[in-house]
């Protein structure tokens, strides 16, 4: 056989610098990730467990990775104390260290990569990690992603104010003693919203009210019982967060009729310094989607979730999803044993060991139609936001795009595009050509293209497209996620290149003659000649 010719400027000639290797990478040190890491270590695997917490205060200030709404206390500036708080709040962390797991707190996984149909140059599966000081690649055989959940945003007037925060963020800060809230209104009554309310109360926060657009609370009665005494305002929606630059001072609440439409009339204002977004707990699937795991829309599991088999393995071999990122439902949120069992099952499979867990827990029948429920919130609080409650809110806060601009597919304001619409190029025109496409609308309006990487607006944009199309949430294809799934400075991300790569680095393909002037070529040159 003639020796294979290599294009020196292609990835065939590139070598990736891999700083370290492990059998198993576990992303996320919640109940599922910890159970997975401990089990895998006991099965004899080398395990690296990363968790981005404690997150740097500046990052939290950008609402990354959760919607912290500036309600973290000064405590988050003391990294050592935060790490100790984490260890105190989660005894299993010490168990993991004891079991031999290489536990790395304050370390984020910003990308997972594997060879696949269009990538073949990687030396096996690798993850991009950063601890804020450096960034490097870790090689691994299997990865168990236990990245948890985050909160769906809701762009009511004033939602950009400090003090509007996610339920998951509130619960986390409350548990770590780093929540700076005195009086809160909870939006939504799901199990996750109620659990946040309970954790906040335990942290000394006064819960002023639970607001629910549905006719009855949707969360488990057992949790509502624990919140006895807190008024639950059903058939109400937040009309606006009142406040000044310093933050929220009150929540204006409007009543809804039996059809969920807003009833005209003066809203009731409840004094509070915080409004907690509890309308949708969203599985964090970004690492999984970016590496190419197939996802499915599953209302019982909280929306778009990875398609996993009985061992929690995704459609990318060796990549597992466990805990909330594999699906959020009330029983799982209320009992960590469910997530832990998922973690152990994945660990056993990755270690090719017998599964000691008690089999899969299936989600319960959902209390409400998830799509209808989330769409009702967006319709009543965002689309039907009444004038007089302040400026039209930006659904995408980073890029400052309103619901109207999304539905009209308007070019972004920085262009100052002077032309009136020449024809109807709004969403309905795009819909004439197929299902609503969140990526297309993102590219044209920039909604979701900003620094928070769409974490605050993505589900709302999908809801707006669904409402515009008269479709359910499940019919709007998931907008793609991309690495890095955390914003990462160029200077940190910079990787030294291998000598081969450095020698042959080219701005483009480096094909001889590709960029030569046409007049310098013979019209009948022999292109078959080798370069």
């Amino acid at each position, binding site marked *: 056989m003639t020796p294979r010719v290599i294009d020196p400027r292609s990835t065939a000639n590139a070598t990736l610098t891999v700083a370290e290797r492990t059998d198993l990478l576990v992303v996320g040190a919640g109940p599922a990730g910890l159970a997975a890491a401990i089990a895998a270590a006991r099965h004899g695997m080398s395990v690296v467990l990363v968790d981005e917490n404690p997150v740097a205060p500046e990052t939290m200030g950008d609402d990354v990775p959760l919607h912290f709404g500036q309600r973290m206390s000064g405590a988050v500036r003391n990294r050592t104390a935060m790490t100790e708080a984490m260890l105190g709040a989660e005894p299993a962390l010490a168990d993991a260290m004891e079991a031999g797991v290489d536990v790395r707190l304050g370390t984020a996984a910003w990308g997972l990569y594997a060879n696949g149909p*269009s990538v073949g140059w990687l030396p096996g599966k690798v993850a991009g990690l950063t601890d804020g000081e450096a960034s490097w690649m870790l090689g691994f055989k299997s990865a168990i992603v236990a990245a948890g959940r985050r909160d769906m945003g809701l762009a009511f007037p004033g939602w950009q104010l400090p003090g509007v925060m996610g339920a998951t963020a509130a619960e986390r800060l409350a548990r770590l003693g780093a929540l700076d809230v005195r009086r809160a209104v909870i939006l939504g009554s799901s199990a996750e919203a109620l659990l946040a309310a309970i954790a906040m109360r335990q942290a000394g926060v006064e819960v002023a009210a639970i607001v629910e657009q549905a006719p009855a609370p949707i969360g488990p009665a057992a949790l509502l019982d624990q919140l006895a005494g807190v008024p639950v305002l059903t058939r109400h929606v937040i009309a606006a967060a009142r406040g000044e630059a310093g933050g929220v001072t009150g929540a204006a609440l409007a009543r809804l009729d039996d059809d969920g439409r807003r009833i005209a009339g003066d809203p009731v204002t409840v004094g509070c310094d915080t409004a907690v977004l509890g309308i949708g707990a969203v599985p964090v699937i970004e690492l999984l989607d970016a590496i*190419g795991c197939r996802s499915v829309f599953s209302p019982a599991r909280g929306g778009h979730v990875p398609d996993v088999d009985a061992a929690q393995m995704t459609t990318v071999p060796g990549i597992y999803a466990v805990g909330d990122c594999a699906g959020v439902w009330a029983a799982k949120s209320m009992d960590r044993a469910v997530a832990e069992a998922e973690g152990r099952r994945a660990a056993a499979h990755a270690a090719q060991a017998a599964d000691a867990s008690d089999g899969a827990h299936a989600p319960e029948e959902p209390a409400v139609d998830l799509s209808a429920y989330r769409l009702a919130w967006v319709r009543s609080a965002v689309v039907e936001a009444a004038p007089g409650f302040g400026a039209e809110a930006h659904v995408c806060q980073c890029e400052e795009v309103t619901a109207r601009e999304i539905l009209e597919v308007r070019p972004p304001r920085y262009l100052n595009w002077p032309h009136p619409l020449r024809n109807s190029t709004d969403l309905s025109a795009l819909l004439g050509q197929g299902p609503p496409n969140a990526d297309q609308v993102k590219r044209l309006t920039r909604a979701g293209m900003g620094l928070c990487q769409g974490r605050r607006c993505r589900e709302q944009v999908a809801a707006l497209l669904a409402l515009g199309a008269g479709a359910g949430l499940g019919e709007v294809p998931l907008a793609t996620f991309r690495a890095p799934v955390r914003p990462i400075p160029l200077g940190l991300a910079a990787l030294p290149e291998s000598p081969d790569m450095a020698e042959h680095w080219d701005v483009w393909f480096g*094909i001889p003659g590709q960029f030569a002037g046409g007049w310098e070529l013979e019209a009948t040159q022999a292109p078959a000649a080798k370069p």
Partner: protein
Amino acid sequence: MSDDAADPADTTGASVIIVGGGATGLSAGWWLARAGVDVLVIDKGIVAWEASGRNGGGCTHAFSPLFREEQRLWPQMDELLGYPTEFSAGRIRIAMDAAQWDDAHRVVRYGERHGFQTEVLDAAQLRELVPLAGEAHGAYWHHFGGHANPHRTVQGYAWAMQDHGGRVLQHTTVHGFAVENGRVTAVETDRGRLGCDHLVLAAGPQTGKLAAALGVRVPVAAARAEMIVTEPLPLMPVGGADGNGLYGRQTLRGNLAYGGGPHEWLEECDGMGVPPRSSTPLMGNIAAHLIEMFPRARHARIIRSWAGVIENTPDGRPVIDRLPDPSNVVVATLSSIGFGLSPATGHAIQELVTDGACGFADLSTLCLSRFDGLEGDWAAQRGWQPVPTARSPAG
């Protein structure tokens, strides 16, 4: 008109059917529709989903026979389309060493040949025009070329074409053709057969496969290339600045969008689908080149990376040609450099369809017949093949 398209069962054929809703196909569709021709653009996905929505937005192709038309059209595109393209004129090319400086001079020469000027910038001027730049070996400021926003431009072609009565049919894959008496009479799609008087193949990496269905060889090999984008930074006076082995721009929003470095050759596209366009840790290498050139951007955070798939012909130059047989077919593969040229390409394709020849540029160096007699293993001879490890089980 878009209602028709919602239900392809109701979609009728067209005088001209264009396969491929990228920059090339939609620009051609727009030019044809403006000329009053009944045109239908068919895409297997949504418009601009492939390379046309994943590129660097550069519009400076001084080597191309279509350069003059590219330069003539870009400054007018917002007006002509009625939609914003974010075109910004001018390019600054930064060289970090003598080799890069020598290499950059070629574009200076080519520009001069067409009567375009280039200035040499001193350190202070460079600092003023490109404040993110640091110490450089030298910099050229081309008073020609520029950059635009690919998403907005390509969607603008589609909308402007529709304004002129043209149609787009998305989510529809073309897999074959009906040929009678040396002419294509219809395209076969996964949603039925659509009649046509003329056919334009502008299907990017799939152009070779589709041409093969007509018994015509259009030699192309597909590859994946990657880019990164940062959070927005304050706008520099000239955003169209690149160099140091990178192409790209600061967008009008302020993001730094850059690419360069190794590409990855792909398996011949299976069926009609382009494989998943994953990006890889090359992100870090691109970042390293970028901060060498823009040390003041060290702290700018990367918020996305992506990859796109482009095809190349054996000499890396486009094919834009009307076939002798079947005689009513125009083939256009831009060979990995087709966004910036697209205003001109569409014009050329329109003339090839309506007049049989391009009247404003000499396209002889882009003819298909230059590949007559090409060896069957031309791609292997060049190493334009997937990395061998691609097939080994990932460890």
